[in-house]
């Protein structure tokens, strides 16, 4: 899942990026409202974390322009103001959730997970596809009664595929949602992660779940290879 962090306080921004990356998110970050708005138009982010007090273009203006442009990315607003009016004004401008500074990182992570679930029309934290069970809270994966150990990036890739289970997912979409701007899009890193995932998840199983649709992309779920 790919997250955009717009926060002008460098220390908080860096810490958020680092923490979210540790949780397997692809994270882009900026300290500038205009830059953030531009980035949100360039990539289909799964969640945006937006500080309200920004230099240049303020957080509320970012939100207003974002929604005016028809962008439906779930937005988690960070605010240092805790009055009811301040919270209401954020929600009224199209925010999906808010957190008052200072917040617990665990809470932020839980709220980001909830926004991702909503993004993919899930209402529980556990995704089940065939005999695969993905617990998005613990970020653990089981197939049948076996735990499948995955790296952070492999997990992120699987979670995205599982969220789109039954649909063909293009390589571009995977790039947009699983990798951040720091990754090199033309490298074979995606193929490497897919093959690792296949080895860990499908190897030695009668039924394979990761299917290649040549020229289109990949599909997760029960189905046949071409």
């Amino acid at each position, binding site marked *: 899942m790919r997250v955009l962090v717009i926060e002008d306080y460098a220390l908080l921004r860096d*810490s958020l990026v680092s923490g979210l990356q540790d949780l397997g998110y692809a994270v882009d970050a900026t300290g500038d409202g205009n830059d953030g708005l531009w980035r949100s138009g360039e990539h289909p982010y799964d969640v945006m974390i937006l500080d309200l007090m920004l230099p240049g273009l303020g957080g509320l203006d970012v939100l207003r322009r974002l929604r005016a442009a028809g962008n439906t990315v779930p937005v988690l607003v960070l605010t240092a103001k805790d009055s009811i009016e301040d919270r209401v004004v954020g929600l009224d401008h199209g925010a999906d959730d808010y957190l008052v500074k200072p917040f617990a990182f665990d809470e932020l992570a839980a709220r980001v997970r909830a926004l991702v679930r909503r993004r993919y029309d899930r209402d529980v934290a556990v995704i089940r596809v065939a005999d695969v069970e993905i617990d998005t809270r613990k970020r653990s994966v089981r197939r049948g009664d076996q735990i499948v150990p995955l790296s952070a990036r492999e997990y992120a890739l699987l979670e995205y595929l599982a969220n789109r289970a039954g649909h063909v997912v293009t390589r571009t979409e995977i790039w947009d949602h699983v990798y951040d701007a720091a990754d090199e899009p033309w490298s074979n890193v995606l193929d490497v992660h897919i093959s690792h995932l296949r080895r860990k998840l499908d190897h030695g199983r009668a039924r394979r779940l990761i299917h290649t649709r040549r020229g289109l992309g990949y599909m997760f779920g029960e189905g046949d290879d071409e």
Partner: protein
Amino acid sequence: MRSNPISLRSRLTTAVLATVGVVLVVLAVLLYLVVRRTAWRQHDDGLRARAEAIAAIAEHDDDGYEMSLPPQPAGQLPAFVEVWTRDGSVLARTPSLGTKDLPKLDGPLGAELADTTLPDGRAGRLIALRFVPRDDARTHPVEPMLLVLAEGTEAIDDAIATAGVWFIVLGLGALAAVFGVTTWSLRRGLRPLTELADRIEQIDDRRLTTRLSTAGQPAELIVPIRKLDELLARLERAFARERQFTADVSHELRTPLAGLRTLLEVTALRPRSTTEYADAMARGLEVVAQLGALVESLLALARLDADQPALETEPVRLHDLVRECWSPYRELATSRTLRFTNDVPEHATATTDREKLRIVVTNLLANAAEYTEVGGWIAVAQLPDGGLEVADSGPPIPDDQVDRVFDRLWRGDAARTATGVHCGIGLALARAMCDRLALSLTATSTTERVAFRIAPRGDR
């Protein structure tokens, strides 16, 4: 213990009643005296007329003097008459005298009046009349006689006493009426005051938006009400400012706190290398230092507000002071490729409080080092009037914001890039310190330069 203050109404009532009471008593006494005097005069006139009427009865003929007094009408208190001839023999006397005599007042021809006690013991008044009896014979020289008439004064005493009682009753009645009217009209007249008091009583720090309108108020209250309204407006603004300040302070503290907390929590997410831990600790300490500086500035400002610290003036070498103040920012300026020049003459001195001026200059330089655009310049110079100018290459402060830079916790969000924790307390503190030093601190901004000027204040 609470003493009951005297109300304006009772004070006015007392004053009015005392005045009216004294006037009434004086008037009543004067009137009483006039009435009594008039009554006595009329009474005496009557007495004289009756004495003359009796004297007319006496006559002189060939047989000598002769006088027969008319009988006293029955049912009346007795009057007393006694008449003497020149030789002292009694010519006539009323039977009511019995064996007693009336005082034989002697004097020239005419009448003499006096208070007396009647032979029967009653209070009375007598008239002694020397007269010449009617002479029918015209043969002998007629000698004058003395007539004394004494009558009781019960009637006139009663009348005067009654008048006195009436004066007292009417006076008391008038006083009561005045009391009633005064109380009523004072209550009515002072109603705007009591209503105002009620409205003022309802005002507390949560209801500072209340205004006491002057509409329909009496002229005397217009000025106090207007002044009160102005005071309320000032109070409301002050309270709002304090609330905003508290909110801003908590806001300024929340952002670095959020950074610190997230930094620590994220670092603790998983085991990390020693380098990563060291890095996190270094960054954490930076935040702590920023928070510390923020708290120090806030405290300095609060202390400056609360009690005025004493000034310790001495000659200060300005060039050296600027150099010392700049040294903590040299590194930051180098990293932002800012050029710094200290153009203050080596020998320039000012007699002032060194530590307070240091706080002012430090804050101006910190502001410049933080906000001047990368690659710009910062210059400190002495002004012709002896003041100091801290100028930088901008970015310019928008016209409508220039005066607001000295507001507490102002953040030039629109124009100036916040570099992490910034809190606009520095310039507010600098200005407050300048006030204390009897200096003025002003800002000017053009497209080429932003300048802060410290100058001796004209009004001192």
